[in-house]
């Protein structure tokens, strides 16, 4: 089965986010005075071939831990869905 995967990488709570705070500081100048709590992350999309969803998820979790995130400062959230059309 092929799964469509989206990994959202975000800085862990408590880790300072210089990008987020710089964006936040610039917003009032642009006419958006009410925005707060800006955090910047990244989104990584890919497809994975695995026998079932549990196997796919385990593999993606391992990939996140060892490569896609730096666990010292980052967390990840995984979303996945089986692709309907078998290829």
């Amino acid at each position, binding site marked *: 089965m092929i799964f469509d995967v989206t990994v959202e990488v975000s800085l862990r709570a408590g880790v*300072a986010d210089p990008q987020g705070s710089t964006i936040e500081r610039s917003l009032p100048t642009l006419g958006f005075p009410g925005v707060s709590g800006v955090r910047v992350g990244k989104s990584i999309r890919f497809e994975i071939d695995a026998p079932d969803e549990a196997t796919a998820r385990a593999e993606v979790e391992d990939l996140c831990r060892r490569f896609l995130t730096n666990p010292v*400062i980052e967390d990840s959230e995984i979303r996945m869905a089986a692709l309907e059309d078998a290829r």
Partner: protein
Amino acid sequence: MTARVGVVLFPGSNCEFDAVEAIRHLGGDAEIVWHEASSLAGFDAVIIPGGFAHGDYLRPGAIARFSPVMEAVTAFAADGGPVVGICNGFQILTEAGLLPGALQKNAGLKFRCDTAILRVESTNSALTNEATLGAELRIPINHFEGNYTCSTETLAELRDADRIVLRYVENPNGSVDDIAGVCNEGRNVVGLMPHPERASHELLGSTDGRPLLLSLLAAASRQ
């Protein structure tokens, strides 16, 4: 015997020849080692130089840690061999798990290209054994992601074990506890954001990097 230093070259490194020149100028022997090398046989010390290894894609050091040479570097370090990561090299060593913590984007999101003043906080490491405790060194910095961060437990561990080897006198990037350089438990692996190789000759404006590189050569000679 002249100490032989391997300077690892990744695609995207850009300080490798500076490191080679500085080591040779100080009486050592230095050779470039391509990142696909699988052995560091014949070397007495290793420098992971600055730059943008593998384009810094994903995160600085994230891809470089999977370069074949890193297995050899890990084995070399495990055997007690002196390894120093400068700037991007420091980032690579943290990603590879050879040093604790991580290097975040600078506070204020500012790329810092400046001369920093560093204080030698420990002379018990491969990079500071010939330096003077408490000495203040003028060394160039040139980085966007040099904001050292780690968990409070790791920070306590680093402090208790005297593993913070260099601190900024004036913090340029938001690093926790003004940390400019740390070492591993064995004290043979050291990472720092500043560039001692760029302060190794009068013509470069400062020779304050010399005691650090001479420390590395001294550690290499004991190999």
